[in-house]
């Protein structure tokens, strides 16, 4: 598709992972080939071990410099999903109880409404209290 941008670096990283896991299977079997005084699968161990080290080294740098360092964040998309996320109601569990919170979540999801609107309707909490309780940023900090 014209203009399509695929996640090529993460795909390369995952393929390196697959190869390293395969190399490990080979080395595991080769490691069992020590009979009495000598292991007799030494070259295949060397080849696979050094390949794993080499490709993990190269791809780590690509992952850092061509994916992690340079990605952009779509802030609007993050905010939109957060505002519609019924699971935010989990934050109200300690105040209104699990069953009531579940009712709010299901209603919000079924009716496609923001959870804060439904909570305002179905609880005695004020809009201001709810805004504080359901602030996504505060919810990332842990505690009760």
């Amino acid at each position, binding site marked *: 598709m014209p203009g399509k*941008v695929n*996640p090529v*670096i*993460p795909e390369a*990283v*995952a393929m*390196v*992972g*697959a190869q390293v*896991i395969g*190399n*490990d299977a080979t080395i*595991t079997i*080769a*490691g069992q080939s*020590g009979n009495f*005084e*000598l*292991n*007799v*699968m*030494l*070259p*295949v*161990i*060397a*080849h696979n*071990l*050094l390949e*794993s*080290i*080499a490709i*993990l*080294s*190269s*791809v*780590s740098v690509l*992952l*850092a*410099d061509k*994916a*992690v*360092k*340079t*990605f*952009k*964040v*779509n802030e609007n*998309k*993050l905010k939109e*999903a*957060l505002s519609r*996320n*019924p*699971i*935010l109601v989990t934050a109200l569990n300690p105040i209104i109880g699990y069953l009531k919170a579940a009712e709010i979540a299901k209603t919000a999801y079924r009716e496609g409404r923001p959870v804060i609107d439904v909570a305002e309707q179905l609880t005695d909490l004020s809009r201001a209290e709810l805004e504080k309780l359901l602030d*996504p*940023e505060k*919810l*990332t900090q842990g505690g009760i």
Partner: protein
Amino acid sequence: MSTRIERDSMGELEVPSEALYSAQTQRAVINFPVSGLRMPVSFVRSLLLAKSAAAKANVTLDQIPLSVGKSICEAVNTLLKSDDLLVHFPVDVFQTGSGTSSNMNANEVLATISSELAGEAVSPNDHINCGQSSNDIIPSVIHISSSIELREKLIPALEHLVQVIRSKALEVQHYVKTGRTHLMDAMPVRLSQSLESWASQIEGQIEAIKRIEKPLHCLAQGGTAVGTGVNAHPSFAAEFNKELSKLTEIPFSSASNFFNYIGTQDVAVSLSGQLKSLAVSMIKIANDLRWMNSGPLAGLGEIELEAL
């Protein structure tokens, strides 16, 4: 192709005229046309460093003449500078299980070059391979080459990855996103918390790999054919490790039990297992990125990876 005639204990055979290797290597080329894969260049380079350390140890212990030892070390240096080192090491990975053909390949190539340098006959067996057996040098070279590659490539690459993830986490600290468990919407997290988790994964892997470096720096060298050390000078292992440590700036030492390090590859299996664990960590990070980047419209579309 023009050829010359070479002889070994099994008789005569034709070898390409310009080849630096001799009969034993040529037999391996004929016997193992399996994969076309040659031993890795990092392996060959470590094998050459080991030959240099062995030559120095043998000179110190009066096992080979000083002039011969010097020419062997000079030959090693010449080869290490070569841009096309593997031309001289044509033996397939799928060869004898002890790697004897690769050991003899190194002995023969070094014998050819050092004979020219010394102006006297240097023997692949009696001089280059003095005090060694394929059975102790090949397991040792697995440890030496892995140690060098970890120190020079993998650990710096992983440390760079951790540093880049940490900087990015700082840069995106203010973004809050939907957390996901079971791939389903869950409580919110900061984007930086996801990234710090990746950095912590890779840091844990670096620590675990570093723990394997200690046994990796123990070598079978000096155990010779079966672990008893027969046919090597009693001080050969100690001298060898002293010289190799100088050459590589890695503290190599003798294994506490040669039989173990010749009869098994337990340390290589541990290292490989740890690399597998690292691979699993990297796949996790790659998949998180792929999911966040999915879309742009019908997927999550949380991030945009650089167009490459």
